[in-house]
């Protein structure tokens, strides 16, 4: 994938992750570089896969136990594997990205195994980048693997809204 395409994916991933971590009380900053560097500390990771007609890939969230422990909404006396919280964060970031991508006419489903494993060997492999967002108390690495022919800069918000108007946290009575 070309660098200008990655810049669009990067913005989508970064802005969604920053919004989500803000909900969990951690303020993150995007320092404008894709980087594989993570700081010191004991790290935990969780991954989610996704697949659709025009897009497939995976997202891994990796952060220190300290940062994830600070963000987790579960009371400290309840023992929860932080890898599960990392995976749920990846799930919720993908959910936020999906809502934004629907406006570009792009949809995908969550997968519980790597969808690339079922593709013919001639299919193009996914490109991968790692985005590191920083906070005063640690870093969050978002390892994003994607195969897509979607040009986010060209598609724009051309599709009529497919999502409910309520954003995250809104209550919809049916």
């Amino acid at each position: 994938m070309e660098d200008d395409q990655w810049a669009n994916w990067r913005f989508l991933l970064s802005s969604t992750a920053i919004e989500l971590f803000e909900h969990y009380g951690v303020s993150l900053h995007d320092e404008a570089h894709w980087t594989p560097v993570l700081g010191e500390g004991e790290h935990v990771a969780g991954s989610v896969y996704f697949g659709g007609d025009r897009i497939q890939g995976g997202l891994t969230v990796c952060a220190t136990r300290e940062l994830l422990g600070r963000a987790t909404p579960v009371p400290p006396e309840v023992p929860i594997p932080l890898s599960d919280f990392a995976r749920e964060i990846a799930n919720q970031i993908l959910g936020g990205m999906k809502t934004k991508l629907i406006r570009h006419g792009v949809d995908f489903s969550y997968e519980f195994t790597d969808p690339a494993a079922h593709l013919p060997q001639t299919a193009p492999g996914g490109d991968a980048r790692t985005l590191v967002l920083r906070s005063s108390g640690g870093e969050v690495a978002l390892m994003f693997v994607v195969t897509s022919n979607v040009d986010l800069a060209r598609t724009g918000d051309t599709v009529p809204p497919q999502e409910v108007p309520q954003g995250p946290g809104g209550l919809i009575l049916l």
Partner: protein
Amino acid sequence: MSIPASMSLKTETGARGARTVLVIDDSETIRAHVASILRGAGYEVLEASDGLMGAFTIRERASDLCLVICDINMPRLDGLEMLEVLRGQYPKLPILMLTTESRVDKVERAKKAGAKAWIIKPFKPELLVEAVTKLTALPESPSRIPSP
């Protein structure tokens, strides 16, 4: 997908005075988070880790339940599939969808299958309690959930 009736005991649903909520989500974090909030609000909580276990639990414990909170994207049997399997069988049991999904067509599908409310993750604890309070206070009426 069908749930073998022989594997479970089907009972009357939504007994008055029941204060037990079933939380169905494949994330242990979400189950623990929701359980902590609801226990703090005075509810008992049961947990299931996917739609299949959720359906079994509903069939076995329906008379104890006042509400089901259900994710959508889960392995084995997702939340919408679970609702469609159980559709019409527990008309007095309200169902709240708690999910990252926001597509109108999925919301409509859940409504047709009997869901009463929808919250997009992430959520604030006070909003969840407000939703649970509203749903468990609704007057019981068999017509609230369409029959198959």
